[in-house]
């Protein structure tokens, strides 16, 4: 590990080394652990392998996510870190892109949370995706041109702005990476279908329970869960907008979930106390997250 880190000094003089490489290795193990989840197996409640105090490399979460599905070479991983290197700070509530714009960049969440959202004429908002570290906000914009949604920061965030040409070059020169990118793009779409089912067919209790199960799985994949507990740095209003509810209703629902002993939520940290119970309440089937699957081709 350390020898690899030493070799890096020549290529990237500004990069911190040693601890960074160990961190990347630890996250790879997280990816492997989640590959063995079956759809009827409940998620481990002690899912986080990587201690939070280690200084992360710029794009660890994205690397972890892509490595879980593709055979990336060391160069592929370095290429990912390189594109995240100049992540910009984005303050909470900032609209990074507005619907109808043609962004010149592909955006990647490095730290914090962002969301895709649309707003109706009467001002009501619907969030169609929560984007957590390692998520692409608008990979599709590279091919679609415009975006049909807003992209907003739900927390103070760090976002990498990657020019389209750079993404195109990466996809052209690195087939394993290209396949992994197509993969995460498709899983993104599958998550939309799951949200649609939730909003269309579940009551408020089921919707929030399902969302929490999903977030737990996604956060576990990128190494941000400790003992069933992870940061939920968003407001009830954001939860409401994501699930077609009002903030008051979300508040009430959270109280009910607490009262039933399924979750603890304090100071923006969510703890799942009863994973099986929460999954049952949600009717949660993680198949749509394609955990443990490898990208084809």
């Amino acid at each position, binding site marked *: 590990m350390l020898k690899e880190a030493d070799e890096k000094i020549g290529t990237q003089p500004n990069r911190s080394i040693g601890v960074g490489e160990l961190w990347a290795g630890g996250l790879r193990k997280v990816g492997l652990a989640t590959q063995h989840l079956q759809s009827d197996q409940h998620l481990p409640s002690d899912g986080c392998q990587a201690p939070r105090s280690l200084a992360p490399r710029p794009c660890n979460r994205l690397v972890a996510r892509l490595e879980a599905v593709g055979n990336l070479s060391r160069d592929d991983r370095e290429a990912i870190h390189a594109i995240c290197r100049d992540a910009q700070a984005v303050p909470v509530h900032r609209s990074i892109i507005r*619907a*109808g714009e043609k962004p010149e960049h592909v955006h990647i969440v490095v730290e914090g949370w962002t969301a*895709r959202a*649309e707003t*109706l*004429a009467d001002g*009501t*908002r*619907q969030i*169609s995706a929560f984007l957590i570290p390692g998520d692409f906000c608008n990979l*599709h914009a590279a*091919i*679609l*041109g*415009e975006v*049909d*949604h807003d992209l907003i920061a739900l927390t103070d965030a760090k976002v990498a702005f990657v020019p389209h040409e750079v993404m195109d070059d990466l996809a052209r020169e690195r087939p394993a990476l290209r*396949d992994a990118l*197509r*993969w995460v*793009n*498709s*899983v*993104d*779409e*599958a998550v*939309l*279908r*799951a*949200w*649609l*089912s939730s*909003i*269309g*067919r*579940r009551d408020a209790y089921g919707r929030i329970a399902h969302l929490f199960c999903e977030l737990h799985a996604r956060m576990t994949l990128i190494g941000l869960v400790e003992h069933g507990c992870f940061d939920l740095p968003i407001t009830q209003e954001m939860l409401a*907008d994501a*699930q*077609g509810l009002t903030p008051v209703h979300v508040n009430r629902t959270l109280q009910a979930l607490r009262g039933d002993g399924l979750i603890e939520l304090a100071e923006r940290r969510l703890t799942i106390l009863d994973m099986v119970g929460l999954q049952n309440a949600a*009717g949660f*089937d993680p*198949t*749509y997250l*394609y955990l443990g*699957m490898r*990208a*084809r*081709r």
Partner: protein
Amino acid sequence: MIDHFLAKLRVRDEISPEEEEAIRGMLDPPVEIPADKTIIPAGVELNVSTLLLDGLLCRYKDLRDGSRQISELHVPGDFADLHSFTLKYLDHSVMALTKCRIATVRHDRLKAVIEAHPHLGRMFWFMTNLDAAIHREWVLSLGRRSAISRVAHLFCETRVRLEISGLADRRGYEFGITQADLAECLGLTPVHVNRVLKELREDGLVAFRGGRVHIHDLAGLERIAEFYPAYLYLDKRPR
């Protein structure tokens, strides 16, 4: 056979004669499918993708409590599952809502076409992202639109998608969907859908009768739906 698919592509970009040939060459012979048949079950490993030639398909998920959510309708010229090329199995099932004609493409042939024609590869990727954009709009509909607005929006969206293939115009289109299917698209019950349809009829906007959507006031319908077709990406440009 591939006219509707080509029309769908050509709304968004030029398709060369060579690309057209490549598409023709990759398809298996068409197959007739009866109504209500699930042609692709969720969770099954796939090595073909399915192109809809005629009829109406849908993607759906059955929830544990037995309820069903339809996540998209497919009109002629749509691939129901190009994303199965990337993912091994689908997180949803695909069903024929009406009698359909489909043609499959084996993934090894699809791969060869994409490698020989990178532009087609980009167009196929475009199509899967178009599906995602439609999903996003449906999330908005079910999350934030009133029942009447949801029904109106679905009628407007389907009209535009069928119009690309010449299967709809301002006055309406054939739509072989039941109220129960509509309910499963829109997070409503069939009775509620029926009630909304009555309201839309009495307001002079649209009548849905005998498997046909009769549009009386398209502008009014689009207004109540708050329908803006930008998310369908109907502009033509090099991709």
